[in-house]
């Protein structure tokens, strides 16, 4: 076989595709996912109330993504189909984040190698277990690589800086208000303005909820949470570790009371 004109070596092709995908992902804003006392918390700055970056896949499984909306939306819908089929065919407990992460890895890997344009997405598939040790957080990159993460994940634009700030504040078993505070601290550039509640997309996988563990936090409930975490922080921004871990005993919500997310949001 002769080398055609304009030949590009596979190594070069892959490098180009990876650079292209990385650039696309880095343009967007970050999303952070972290474990807290009762499960897993997802936080994303997102001015849109309709185009979600965070969503429910199954009873115990949540999904978060950065990058191109149409691409990760296709992944999200595919994931829901996969989960619902398996849960219906076997039993609801047989749907796992591991299986889903494998499906995504296959799909993303195939697209990365075969299609001229790779997906510009990075996603997290998280599953809440009966205890923190049984939680699973998988991060998948545009080429189908899977990373088994513990504790916290940051992805999107300036992911490393965000992850660095998140590590400063994160510890195991943070109560929800403090975990949210840590996430917002990480998502805000030093000296920058914190995003207000209506610019945030926040959800939890709460292991204490019955049936479906996924719950969106928005509206008054999110505002209450944000107010709660900002009250102690001005006095003790860096010594908060001992100060207020026990407050917010009425949290997290365990029943579909109050503002249920219907997705339509008025």
């Amino acid at each position: 076989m002769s080398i055609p004109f304009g030949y590009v070596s596979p190594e070069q092709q892959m490098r180009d595709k990876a650079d292209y995908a990385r650039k696309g992902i880095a343009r967007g804003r970050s999303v952070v996912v972290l474990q807290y006392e009762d499960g897993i918390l997802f936080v994303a700055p997102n001015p849109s109330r309709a185009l979600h970056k965070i969503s429910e896949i199954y009873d115990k499984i949540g999904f978060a993504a950065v990058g191109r909306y149409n691409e990760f939306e296709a992944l999200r819908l595919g994931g829901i189909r996969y989960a619902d089929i398996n849960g219906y065919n076997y039993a609801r407990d047989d749907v796992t984040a591991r299986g889903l992460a494998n499906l995504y890895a296959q799909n993303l890997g195939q697209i990365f190698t075969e299609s001229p344009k790779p997906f510009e997405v990075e996603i997290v598939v998280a599953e809440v277990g009966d205890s923190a040790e049984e939680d699973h957080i998988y991060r998948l990159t545009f080429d189908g690589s899977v990373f088994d993460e513990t504790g916290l994940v940051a992805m999107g634009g300036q992911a490393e800086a965000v992850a660095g700030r998140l590590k400063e504040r994160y510890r195991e078993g943070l109560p929800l208000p403090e975990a949210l505070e840590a996430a917002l601290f990480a998502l805000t550039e030093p000296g920058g303005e914190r995003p207000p509640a209506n610019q945030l997309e926040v959800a939890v996988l709460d292991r204490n909820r019955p049936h479906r563990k996924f719950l969106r936090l928005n509206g008054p409930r999110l505002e209450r949470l944000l107010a709660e975490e900002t009250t102690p922080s001005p006095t003790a921004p860096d010594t908060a570790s001992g100060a207020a871990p026990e407050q917010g005993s009425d949290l997290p919500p365990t029943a579909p009371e109050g503002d249920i997310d219907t997705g339509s949001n008025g």
Partner: protein
Amino acid sequence: MGSHRDLPAGMVNHIFTNSGISSFTEFVGSYAPDLLPDRNETLAAPVGDHVPHATTIVAATCAGGVVMAGDRRATSGNIISQRDMEKVFRTDDFSCMGIAGAASTGIEMARLYRVELEHYEKMEGRTLSVAGKANRLATMIRGNLGMAMQGLAVVPLFAAYDPEIDGGRIFGYDVGGGPYEQYQHHAIGSGSIFARGSLKKLYRENASPEDVVQALINALYDAADDDSATGGPDVTRKIWPVVAQITADGFRRLSDEEVGAHVQTVLEGRMNFPDGPVAPLR
């Protein structure tokens, strides 16, 4: 076997490119049809009484919601095939269904219906309207018509909290589908005639959920009193009816202790008046 077992790669492609409506049943019907119950199968002979049948379900609206209750008996002809069967199912956070008729088909339908509602909600990011949910269930029942004609009929009762009216709504069906919206209260199954008569007298509009639970347990008691296929409260084994309550706070199945206390009240009343509470004549 079906084409879905052929190759994982094909599955991956299909699962990601299907862009039809957000119905789980429709999707599975094209993607892996043999996972769905085969509605067009012809049986060698009608099954008759040989499969377990579920019996009586009652539902009534209460202030700000709806309550549904079902007895626990399943019968195959003259045999009691199960004493502690569950016939009232949570279908999503704000709705539930009870089944009467062929138990196996009913359970399967409830399982599929739950996935159907959740699937739509996750795909679209919004919940179906109550009318949409009721219609969707009608389609599933109509799909079962062929089997129903051969003895595997299942007729559900559907109840949901409707945020539009801040109250409960009840829908009945027949083997061909429906839905028929029922106001205030309804009962289905073999004991439904007796339960309906009882409920008619005991129902009070806008009663508290607790009062409605009392009325429903009384109705089930009356059904069990006159219908051999409906099970009354099993005092020795402590098997109580399944009671589900749906309000703005969502679906809640009452615990055995709660139902037990209600049953105790009913039983004590019946010790003095075996036919139950007396409705005022004028």
